[in-house]
């Protein structure tokens, strides 16, 4: 559904949500866009380019208590805290990333902590403009049709507001006095979307991104892994900022009197040295080249079958943040170049791995 809301309606919507919910939205921190708790409308600074750190932490916190235990009594109880919250100002790629995380955490044994929080989260998306790292247009995530409650597109005089859920529709009605969208506004949105496609500086040299798992399956021996492995710090920043990296470690903390404690999960990263190491010292991905190959393959190949989708949404955050400028779209293009020199002769089903 395409409603129209005026600038005033937008203001009322944001103000209403800020007043009635725990509200997280974009602000400017140290000159960069970031998500933060917002308590007043004036703090809200809609950003057209991606936040440096994704919004995943509001659904999958960097540290989250799963269990409280009482050592003396030998008892433990599960903890699943989830306040009603609003995530405001997510871009299309961010919403796609959340849709992937939803699949991950409901696969197999459902993860109550994540799912409860997700259930309690209202998502309002906003339109964006690519910077030099964004390549969502090459991945198919430049626009989004589901996973949000409301999505806002700026047009002359206000916003086109798409409701993606019943909840979103009621919120629009409650706060923003929506009206029918005029044809001119719809035309304008179409024009803007077409124009956006031309603004990308980063892109993947492939027409059909669904072939990326296959392309990657032939690239295990590509020299690019050694090349980027040689400069990577193994710092894990790329994992931290990525909206679809969800690996975690589990840690216990005990009170000073050794009677009570908590078990938490904390973000972990596959680029960190110890990630695949077992007691006794064996490390299954010893070199930084091994670990980067794993991370990139996880984005483009390893999870694709199970979760029916690529795990990179083209936000460019990992490239933007990397101190040594390892750039995911450039690396992928290097691999694509090699695959073009040696055409893929094997049918999709026969690929190894």
């Amino acid at each position, binding site marked *: 559904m395409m409603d129209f809301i005026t600038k005033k309606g937008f203001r009322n919507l944001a103000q209403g949500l800020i007043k009635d919910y725990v509200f997280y939205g974009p602000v400017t921190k140290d000159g960069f866009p970031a998500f933060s708790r917002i308590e007043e409308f004036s703090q809200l600074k809609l950003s057209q380019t991606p936040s440096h750190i994704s919004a995943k932490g509001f659904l999958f916190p960097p540290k989250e208590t799963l269990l409280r*235990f009482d050592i003396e009594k030998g008892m433990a109880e599960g903890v699943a805290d989830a306040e009603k919250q609003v995530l405001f100002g997510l871009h299309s790629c961010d919403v796609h990333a959340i849709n992937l995380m939803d699949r991950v955490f409901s696969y*197999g044994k459902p993860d109550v902590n994540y799912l409860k929080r997700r259930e309690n989260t209202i998502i309002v998306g906003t339109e964006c403009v690519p910077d030099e790292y964004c390549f969502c247009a090459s991945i198919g995530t430049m626009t989004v049709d589901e996973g949000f409650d409301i999505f806002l597109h700026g047009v002359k005089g206000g916003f086109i507001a798409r409701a993606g859920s019943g909840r979103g529709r009621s919120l629009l009605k409650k706060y923003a006095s929506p009206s029918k969208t005029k044809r001119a506004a719809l035309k304008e949105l179409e024009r803007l979307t077409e124009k956006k496609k031309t603004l990308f500086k980063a892109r993947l040299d492939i027409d059909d991104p669904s072939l990326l798992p296959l392309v990657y399956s032939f690239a295990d021996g590509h020299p690019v892994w050694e090349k980027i492995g040689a400069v990577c710090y193994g710092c894990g920043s790329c994992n931290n900022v990525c909206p679809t990296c*969800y690996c975690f470690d589990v840690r216990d*903390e005990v009170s000073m009197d050794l009677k009570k404690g908590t*078990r938490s999960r904390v973000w*972990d990263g596959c680029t960190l040295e110890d990630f695949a190491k*077992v007691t006794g010292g064996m490390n*299954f991905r010893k070199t930084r080249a091994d670990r980067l190959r794993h991370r990139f393959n996880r984005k483009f190949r390893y*999870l694709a079958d199970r979760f029916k989708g690529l795990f990179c949404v083209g936000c460019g955050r990992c490239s933007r943040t990397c101190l040594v400028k390892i750039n995911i779209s450039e690396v992928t293009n290097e691999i694509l170049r090699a695959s073009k020199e040696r055409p893929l002769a094997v049918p999709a089903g026969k690929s190894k791995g």
Partner: protein
Amino acid sequence: MVGLPGYGEAPISISSQPSPDMVDLCIKAAGDLTNALHRLRKGDILWVRGPFGRGFPVEEMKGKDLLFIAGGIGLIPMRSLIKSALSQRKSFGRLTLLYGVKEPGEVLFKKELKEWEKRGVEVNVTIDRPHPQWRGNVGVVTTLIGPCKVDELKTSAVIIGPHVMYKYVILSLGSKKIRGEDIFLSLERRMRCGMGKCGHCQIQSVYVCQEGPVFRLSEIRHLREAI
């Protein structure tokens, strides 16, 4: 997953025949958690989650000769399978255990090894290097494979040991012509959740905690990083 509040959890396989009432856990003190487990006394509480993943297809193995190849503490989970086979001894053909350790002091379940022999398991133990107190075989476990007689069409081989051992054992088994579907390996990986989420145990698209830890060689032969 076996754990203690304050120390976390570790993936531990059972070493007795699976039973709903009781299981044996045999745990080497190697890190913080396992050292703390060793300090437990009778009556203390141990925390267990699971079981997770896939074990050995004992039913499918019936009627076959079983060749167990264990290295070091790999005998611990192997014991579970050996005991299962012995409890239905008649359902299996020849049972052979090839067991390699570094030095004589590391031989586990010494009494049981003798008992298993009596009950019809051919037991061959070897130590890596000569040792004054040792009169048996010397050399890595692969040296026991050569002399071993194998009927390749009716043998299932089971390999459990340290990661480094797998490559060499598989190479040596090559001459025995056992099919990849009939060679089983249990893979060790770092595990944090056991539920296919935390990512630690992942080998390419495979979650060892869920789809393993037991795999057929044919399933993982081409999986880079697996062996």
